[in-house]
């Protein structure tokens, strides 16, 4: 790169500073998970006791399992709905109410969580009064709330793929007499499968991470992992949360490595590449 708008040293130090800013807090948090002391910021020696405490904390384990279950179901349904919505926006031409549809689809991306949470709770309470469903609130209502806001993200990812991909194959199939449903299942879906997978992963992460919306629409019996973490750290720092953070960072790291490997392999075999 020969073109230089600004001195490379300046940009290089900006990058170093920026990445230090992004990563030092996470590294410090992980480092203190191995600290023997209960006082989080005083180092007294290496220990794995907080990982043991984490493993024996049934509240955290149960909450993690509940969160994973909700994230799996909501990500799957959100990807299905988001893909349908993206198909409707990109392949259906004009239909009645399209403007309202695309507006509603984009709005959850920018809506503050407190508002989404509050309004969904109001809906659930009103519905319960009117038709007796949902009876109380819990995992089901959290799942519905997560589907609603994460389908917008899944739709954005799939839509990006649908608008940029070459339509020659679809048109060829249409010319040969294939009907839209057949085109969708035989040609479009295989081509957008990698985008659907990215959308699913994004929806899964968003669901796993959500505190505010879940706090509004959950019941007394269903505390998700972020809710348990929040109630622990609201009062200050606790070392077992550091251990939990280290575990999550490790899982994400492994996940990213596997995803990178899979994508590299897909690129090599030619699957998932743009036509």
């Amino acid at each position, binding site marked *: 790169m020969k073109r230089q*708008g600004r001195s490379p040293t300046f940009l290089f130090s900006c990058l170093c500073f920026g990445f230090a800013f992004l990563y030092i807090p996470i590294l410090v948090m992980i480092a203190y998970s191995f600290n023997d002391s209960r006082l989080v*910021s005083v180092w007294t020696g290496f220990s794995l006791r907080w990982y043991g405490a984490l493993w024996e904390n049934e509240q955290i384990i149960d909450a993690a399992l509940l969160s994973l279950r909700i994230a799996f179901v909501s990500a799957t349904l959100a990807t299905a709905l988001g893909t349908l919505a993206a198909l409707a926006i990109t392949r259906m031409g004009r239909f009645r109410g399209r403007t309202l549809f695309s507006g509603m*689809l984009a709005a959850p991306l920018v*809506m503050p969580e407190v508002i989404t949470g509050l309004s969904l709770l109001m809906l659930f309470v009103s519905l319960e009064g009117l038709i007796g469903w949902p009876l109380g609130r819990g995992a089901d209502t959290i799942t519905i709330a997560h589907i*609603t806001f994460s389908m917008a993200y899944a739709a954005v990812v799939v839509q990006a793929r649908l608008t940029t991909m070459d339509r020659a194959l679809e048109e060829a199939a249409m010319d040969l007499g294939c009907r839209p449903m057949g085109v969708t299942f035989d040609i479009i879906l295989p081509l957008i499968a990698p985008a659907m997978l990215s959308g699913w992963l994004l929806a899964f992460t968003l669901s796993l991470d959500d505190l505010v919306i879940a706090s509004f629409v959950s019941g007394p019996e269903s505390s998700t992992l972020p809710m348990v973490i929040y109630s622990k750290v609201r009062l200050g720092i606790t070392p077992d949360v*550091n251990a939990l953070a280290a575990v999550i960072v490790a899982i994400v790291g492994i996940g990213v490595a596997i995803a990178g490997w899979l994508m590299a392999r897909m690129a090599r075999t030619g699957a998932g590449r743009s036509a």
Partner: protein
Amino acid sequence: MTTARPERLWRRTVAGVPYLWLLVFFLAPFAIVLRISFADPLIGQPPFTPFYDEAQGIQLTADNYRFLTEDDLYWVSYLKSVRIAAVATLLCLLIGYPMAYGIARARAVWRNVLLLLVILPFWTSFLLRVYAWMGMLSGQGVVNKTLLALGLVDQPVQILYTDLAVYLGIVYTYLPFMILPLYATLERLDGDLLDAAADLGGRPRQAFLDITLPLSVPGVVAGSMLVFIPALGEFVIPSLLGGLDTLMIGRTLYDEFFVNRDWPLASAVATVLVLILVLPIVVFQRFSQLDREVTR
């Protein structure tokens, strides 16, 4: 054109199912919030007056909105939220722009690695990244230890539970949202323009100011809105890192609902917040459309 029945059914399903879902679980809840914001609070289940009463007919009251204007708490919360979100957005821009520029200028092999490094924290828990700063900023945390070691302060300074911590938290968690759209516009910037400027004797600084900066405006606006809009309604960061006086509207709404249990007032707070957000959202949409047209 005659379409077979399964085809028509398929077309209806593709648009209809997500449409119906959004109507029921996105639009209807807003209508309900709007309607409850005009109700009176009540002790009971649900804790607000019904829309229609056999004895009194349709019941609507603007009391909640009147209360919002009268009680300082809400004014202060709205203004402080706008200020904190705006300043944090500016800080993100100041840190994010050189980073995005640096990544766009890096060698192709490095670019993807650097981008991955920007996105990676986003995949780990947001809540835990905010929590990481609780540890960093506490009395004996890394920041205070560093300041003490450098001799900049004599004793630990209170950073945690102040506005400063909230700024740090917002900049930290939302920085990737600023960098990614900036990178997208900077990366596809036409290098020929810069070459032409250099050939014509323009100095790099001049070329940056005359070409790069104006052409990256769509990215600047998109990134700023992606930080400003969610930061405005932020709840987790002010409640974990802020002090008791760090009144941001997301937190005030949360407390109004969970602590005071005043559903109608919380609904009114939410309605006003949505109205405040309309302007930045419209700006964001306009610019992303403009951006698409420019690059087409």
